[in-house]
């Protein structure tokens, strides 16, 4: 595909965990991400959803090599990132930016907003004094020129998130990883920031990887959705298909667990109640990782890992007994 911007193939990230048990010291491996593959087209948004421990944030950071993948490949504009040297990677990060969840922690409290926004330009050696660029960026994200001289503590959460977005936009990136960008914001403020992402995308044409646990926001913003469970993608496809016809039992359960702001629907809905919690990624279940909570699980689910396969409504899911 020629309009493919990002291609992730068989991405694996294991973290080592040192456990001291009495005199014995052993290493344990947390399998945060296991064999994840997906691609993002130019100008498109991929939503990455899952519960805590599903590995969605780790995937986001591996894309930018903020953490080194254990194995697998990440290709950006056809270039394999794993083989790049540190300096080459830094130069490429011009085109790949990230916005973090916590707008209070991701800005330096001692730097003016203008200085924070122009820092990527300085790091990347863009000549000039950047004052005009900073003003342009502030206006782009819906803030005003006089905000450049102020400090982060003078802003509300929603405004700070806009500052983080302005900083990510400074180098005209082709891809922005948005890691839970609206989760910390109040409901009435969230909508404005989501609209901002959409406006920026239609004006500037960049792609987003939108990581979130809020399924209704992802439904709104994403073109394609990947649902993760315990480090693996269990279902991936067009947003309409995944939400209208979820084929993996986990996707179905997840969608039915989200409370909708409508009492009438809530009273009549068929709800799937999953038992228990997500198992530990240190020792994930054999075969299908969801089988310990799945109401359809059979013996085969423990023995054989299901592979992603195309379903009638067009998306792919990894299940021996897919929903139809």
């Amino acid at each position, binding site marked *: 595909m020629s309009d493919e911007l990002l291609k992730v193939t068989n991405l694996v990230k294991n973290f080592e965990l040192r456990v001291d048990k009495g005199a014995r010291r052993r290493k344990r491996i947390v399998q945060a991400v296991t064999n994840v593959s997906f691609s993002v087209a130019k100008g498109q948004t991929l939503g990455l959803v899952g519960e805590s421990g599903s590995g969605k944030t780790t995937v986001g950071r591996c894309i930018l090599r903020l953490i080194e993948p254990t194995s697998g490949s990440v290709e950006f504009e056809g270039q394999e990132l794993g083989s790049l040297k540190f300096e080459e990677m830094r130069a490429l990060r011009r085109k790949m930016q990230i916005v973090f969840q916590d707008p209070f922690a991701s800005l330096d409290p001692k730097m003016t907003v203008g200085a924070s926004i122009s820092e990527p330009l300085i790091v990347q050696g863009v000549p000039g004094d950047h004052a005009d660029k900073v003003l342009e960026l502030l206006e782009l994200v819906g803030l005003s020129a006089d905000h450049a001289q102020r400090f982060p503590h003078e802003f509300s959460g929603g405004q700070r998130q806009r500052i983080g977005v302005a900083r990510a936009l400074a180098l005209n990136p082709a891809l922005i990883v948005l890691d839970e960008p609206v989760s910390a914001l*109040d409901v009435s403020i*969230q*909508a404005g920031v989501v609209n901002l992402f959409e406006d920026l995308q239609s004006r500037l044409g960049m792609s987003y990887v939108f990581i979130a646990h809020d399924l209704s926001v992802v439904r709104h913003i994403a073109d394609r959705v990947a649902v993760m469970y315990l480090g693996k993608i269990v279902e991936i496809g067009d947003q309409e298909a995944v939400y209208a016809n979820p084929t993996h039992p986990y996707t179905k359960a997840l969608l039915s*667990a989200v409370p909708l702001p409508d009492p009438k629907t809530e009273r009549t809905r068929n709800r799937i*109640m999953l038992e228990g919690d*997500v198992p530990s990624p240190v020792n994930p279940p054999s075969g299908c990782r969801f089988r310990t909570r799945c109401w359809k699980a059979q013996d085969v689910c423990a023995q054989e890992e299901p592979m992603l396969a195309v379903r009638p409504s067009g998306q792919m899911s990894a299940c021996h007994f897919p929903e139809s």
Partner: protein
Amino acid sequence: MTEKVLEIRDLHVTFDTPSGPLEAVRGIDLDVEAGELLGVVGESGSGKSVSFLATMGLLPARVRVTGSVLLAGEQLIGASNKYMRSVRGRLLSMIFQDPLSALNPVHRIGDQISEMLQSHQSLSSRDAAKRAMELLDIVGIPQPSDRARQYPHEFSGGMRQRVIIAIAIANNPKVLIADEPTTALDVTVQAQILEVIERVQDRFGTAVVLITHDLGVIARVADRVNVMYAGRNVEQGTIDNLFDHPSHPYTRGLLASLPRPGKQRLKPITGFPPNMVKPPRGCAFHPRCDFAADICKSEMPNLVSYGNLQTACVRARELPKSERFV
């Protein structure tokens, strides 16, 4: 008529801050009826948590609390510490967002439930331990006799919140106040905890006050809902009436700002929540309101019956009927 277990009248809570007094709660009236599930919804800083911390007598002594809170007819505001200690955990319990910090890490789960039982009832240790296991069973913890001997770190987040609920209902209180009890949990676990809360309400007839910012959670479990903004009650009613035809512009704005299936553009509420050291004069929502008129800048509205809802908006009668947002 149903019995009112909790009656809050003209409650004010004022903190002293370096930039002057901050009135976090500015005169709220609220009733909790026996056995109902009342949702209290609002954004950060709306005063929803502080109102109920004041009700529980959990605010530091230097915080000024005035007004009246009647629990089954007994006045709680200004009551002695000794009396409040006897009320908390027996008649009125509160659970919070973070279940880990509410449990003592060095005591076994069973002992922490027994402690709550024995501080309000004369029970032998053996009877308390037995009752503790029954409570663990009620909140859906499998193998309660083994689990009672474990420590908090051996429980997952959802299981810890179940333990907290077991402690809170140990003495069968009249009212359980749940302050964002599922906000820190994953959505599949949230569904389980909401079910536990409903089960408790059903089985013991406990009235529940559920404080949340999530309108979906309200729609799923609440009977009635109270919407708070800038330390005031701006609207209240049954969930069907409120979600069908919200009347207050803030409630309309909240519902309209939620993402719906389909790709229509979201409608945010303009502006920012007010600075509570210097809240706007008149109706605190007027700087963000699409319907604001001159009168809104001078007159602070009180709740008045309007249709099936109680709404604090001087213009409620003149406003166009709201659409159903779903």
